[in-house]
């Protein structure tokens, strides 16, 4: 039982961890901020507004010391959500242990180290797939040899469901990711190396949604599929090594901003899926907080999440009984169905040119996720999928929980960034520049030569290299990557099909207004959808872009991680009529006014700017004051209504 946490500074996060441990938490789950996850130091242009926001900044060994101060590394199970820079954070952790005289063989924990789902959903990739997988493989093989109690990779289908994946897609793409990693490791170890040990060390991080019966069956299907893959494809003979080990974070995508207290119930129901079946029970469960869709949880919110698990474990009789589903025909049939469908999709991916990597690079998998998500949102908008408190039963008494407005979430002090930059400068001033230089040079050589980068990274950590320097060196060798957005090839229903006439009429009506708008403007109405900063939450931007296309806009969308200056340049060069920004990471106050200013300075005085995402009410007012025309939050679930607004805004702006 643990909650995923970290914010502001290493010291503040350390205090939080100690508090949580005092409350009975038995492990540590570290959330890093986005600059750390994407390999930038706090003083980098792209880090602006993001330092210490959604996790803790760790820029060097000194930060790691502060973060884990007084926490017994040899007695602690530490989970680190880190991917593109996993090799680096792992190197810092091992270095700290060695510095404290702890044998790395005694360390236990996990680095997430699953890059594939970063391209598909989570967004904190840096290098192209092939080079990234090589880093993944380096961490895996190093850990298996030198830190044997460590889980060097945690394959995540969790994030796929958060990007819209159906249960079948979640199963299939988790398995294809595993295949991709195992095949890479195998190739790097030499064609006929045995990889039973590696297979046995792979663990999973899965999702559990509200349809908990189907989700229970999904977990059982996972157990079977993994066992079968081990036996058939990799010849793993030891049954124990083929056991499907997994942790869970239950679904957040279905948690609502409207009547957020209802989420307490949703979360408890989601947990059922991963605890009910003993044979397929999760090893570790993380629950989101009831106010998930409002902003970052406060300690009290996290406590409620922890208590929910404790009630399940200690007050119910669940742990006293054997598997309650064994022998159930209903469950068995459902499991079989999921397994079959998932395997078909696995084969579809494997048969694509370039295999799994090819299916990532061409956008094949991403497109499927975006399409599933679009279908889901459309069902909600049509009222076909009921969301209590959102599209039905939306009357509510005033809630005492959210009365405080901005008070109901955790906010991060903006001074945190300045302090991090100062700490970094101080760190740089005290280290031996020559050693830094030499260790970075050695890292680049290892990267080029194909040697395992872990030893060189550990040497860098000890020499005082920073996160940005480590990643910068590898950026030089490997190059940087932009992942496919997945929206180009998505065909949406577009209306017209039987029983959906009302929807088709609605769509046609909006299209007519967009056409009229085009006549007024003299050319097609054009929109820029932008994701400024390091925020990787792309769902909203993707769905808005798709919908805007479907109603007739010409849409320019450049994917995630674009700087404000780039967005301004694109808006100007493309001659767009409206700019829509999507920010969920909390950096809107830093980034949005800058973009509005930039647009005005570039002479785009008439172009309305709208913003969507996780924007607290008070911040929304500030953005409107800064010249933003509209602010949307998850409460605005009706995309058609948003589209009508956009048309009106452009019409008004063009007199």
């Amino acid at each position, binding site marked *: 039982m643990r909650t995923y946490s970290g914010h502001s500074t290493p010291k503040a996060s350390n205090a939080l961890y100690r508090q949580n441990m005092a409350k009975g938490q038995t492990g540590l789950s570290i959330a890093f901020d986005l600059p750390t996850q994407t390999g930038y130091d706090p003083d980098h242009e792209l880090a602006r507004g993001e330092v210490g926001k959604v996790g803790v900044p760790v820029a060097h060994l000194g930060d790691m010391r502060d973060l884990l101060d007084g926490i017994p590394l040899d007695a602690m199970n530490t989970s680190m959500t880190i991917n593109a820079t996993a090799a680096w954070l792992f190197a810092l952790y091992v270095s700290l242990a060695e510095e404290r005289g702890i044998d790395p063989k005694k360390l236990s924990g996990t680095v997430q180290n699953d890059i594939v789902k970063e391209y598909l959903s989570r967004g904190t990739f840096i290098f192209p797939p092939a080079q990234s997988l090589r880093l993944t493989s380096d961490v895996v093989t190093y850990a298996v040899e030198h830190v044997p109690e460590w889980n060097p990779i945690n394959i995540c289908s969790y994030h796929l469901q958060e990007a819209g994946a159906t249960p079948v897609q979640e199963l299939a793409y988790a398995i294809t990711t595993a295949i991709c990693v195992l095949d890479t490791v195998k190739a790097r170890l030499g064609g006929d190396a045995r990889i039973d040990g590696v297979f046995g060390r792979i663990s999973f991080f899965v999702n559990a949604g509200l349809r908990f019966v189907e989700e229970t069956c999904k977990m059982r299907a996972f157990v079977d599929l993994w066992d079968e893959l081990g036996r058939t494809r990799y010849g793993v003979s030891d049954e124990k090594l083929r056991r499907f080990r997994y942790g869970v974070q239950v679904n957040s995508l279905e948690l609502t901003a409207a009547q957020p207290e209802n989420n307490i119930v949703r979360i408890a129901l989601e947990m059922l899926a991963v605890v009910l079946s003993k044979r397929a029970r999760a090893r570790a469960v993380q629950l989101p907080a009831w106010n998930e869709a409002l902003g970052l949880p406060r300690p009290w919110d996290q406590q409620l999440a922890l208590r929910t698990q404790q009630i399940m474990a200690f007050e119910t009789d669940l742990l006293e009984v054997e598997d309650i589903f064994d022998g159930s025909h209903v469950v068995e049939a459902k499991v079989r169905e999921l397994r079959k469908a998932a395997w078909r999709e696995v084969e579809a991916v494997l048969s694509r040119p370039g295999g799994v990597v090819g299916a990532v690079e061409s956008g094949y998998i991403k497109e499927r996720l975006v399409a599933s998500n679009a279908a889901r949102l459309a069902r909600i908008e049509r009222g076909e999928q009921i969301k209590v408190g959102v599209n039905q039963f939306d009357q509510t008494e005033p809630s005492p929980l959210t009365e405080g407005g901005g008070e109901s979430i955790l906010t991060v002090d903006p001074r945190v960034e300045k302090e991090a930059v100062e700490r970094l400068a101080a760190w740089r001033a005290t280290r031996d520049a020559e050693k830094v230089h030499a260790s970075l040079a050695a890292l680049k050589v290892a990267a080029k030569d194909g040697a395992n980068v872990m030893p060189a990274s550990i040497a860098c950590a000890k020499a005082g290299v920073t996160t940005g320097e480590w990643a910068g060196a590898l950026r030089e060798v490997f190059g940087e990557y932009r992942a496919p957005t997945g929206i180009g090839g998505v065909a949406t229903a577009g209306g017209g099909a039987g029983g959906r006439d009302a929807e088709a009429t609605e769509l046609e009506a909006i299209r007519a207004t967009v056409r009229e708008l085009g006549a007024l403007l*003299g050319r097609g109405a054009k929109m820029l959808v932008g994701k400024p900063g390091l925020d990787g939450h792309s769902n909203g931007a993707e769905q808005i872009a798709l919908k805007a296309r479907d109603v007739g806009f010409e849409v320019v969308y450049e994917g995630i991680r674009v700087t404000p200056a780039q967005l301004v340049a694109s808006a100007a060069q493309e001659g767009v009529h409206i700019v829509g920004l999507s920010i969920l990471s909390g950096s809107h106050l830093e980034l949005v006014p800058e973009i509005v200013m930039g647009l005005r300075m570039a002479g785009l005085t008439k172009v309305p700017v709208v913003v969507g995402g996780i924007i607290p009410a008070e911040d929304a007012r500030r953005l409107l004051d800064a010249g933003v025309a509209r602010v949307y939050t998850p409460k605005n679930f009706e995309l058609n209504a948003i589209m009508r607004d956009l048309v009106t805004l452009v019409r008004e702006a063009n007199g």
Partner: protein
Amino acid sequence: MTEDELARRVTLGERAAVAEALNLTEDRRPEGRARAIALLRALRAGDEGARAHRVGITGPPGVGKSTLVAALTRELRRVSRTVGVVAVDPSSIRSGGALLGDRARISPDPNDQGVFVRSLATAGELGGLARSAPLALTVLAAAYDVAILETVGVGQTETDVRHVTDTVVFVVQPGSGDALQFLKAGIMEVPDVLVVNKADQAELAARASGDLAAALATLRSAGALPYDVPIVLTSARDGTGIDALVAALGAHRAELAGPRLLARRREGAIAWGLRAFVRRHGEVGVETRGGEQNVREAIASRLDEGAVIPQIVDEV
């Protein structure tokens, strides 16, 4: 701002002016069209763009054209040449909407005044070329050293691209026989440069380029090949072969220099004018004007008088 002033700023490469000029070229309102014509006339009078190299990049979907344009742009900037890009993406016939994602592959430095990228939707046009793409290319050619037009398609699109560019690059990827089939069947005019992209798939790429070379040889012996078409192997992803492509483009441009270039551009403008005329007035319109040859001649003489295509189409 007057159109003359706008034209002047365009030729200075002022990005805001280029953007505004491009907006005008798309404008379908009568007053917008009139301004666009005035602008194009002003650009033409200054003979701007004559020195620029107008390059068309075309080929089947997904072969890596956009990635290649991005790599090409980087390489051209490295050797200090300024670059303007028009990337054309298809619109949905049903909604008229379009997703224009090609900027993502270029992600130019926003502070670099020497790069400009505009995406265009085909806006219901048949074939792969947006109606305003040729005009947009004219504007970019006035502002930058190299003006690149990227568009999807084979067959008619490829021919259209030829009309408005100096050099047509046809891109294929290993393992697909399309280009070969098109060449052999005469569906596709022979491009000026052939690129086999994704050459990081070495074996397949070598085979593809071998097949293409053989097809070209057959055409040559049949006398159907006016010049030697170079085949360049690139990996847009890894950035290899891009310098060779730049060299091939330069060589083709050099070969065309002088009267041949002028002749090609004039021929192209007439052909494009005819297409635009037919689009506007239909086959019936051509008949009332005494047939295709007469329309061609009318366009040619108006061109020689300094008119520009949209104006000619309106007038003729």
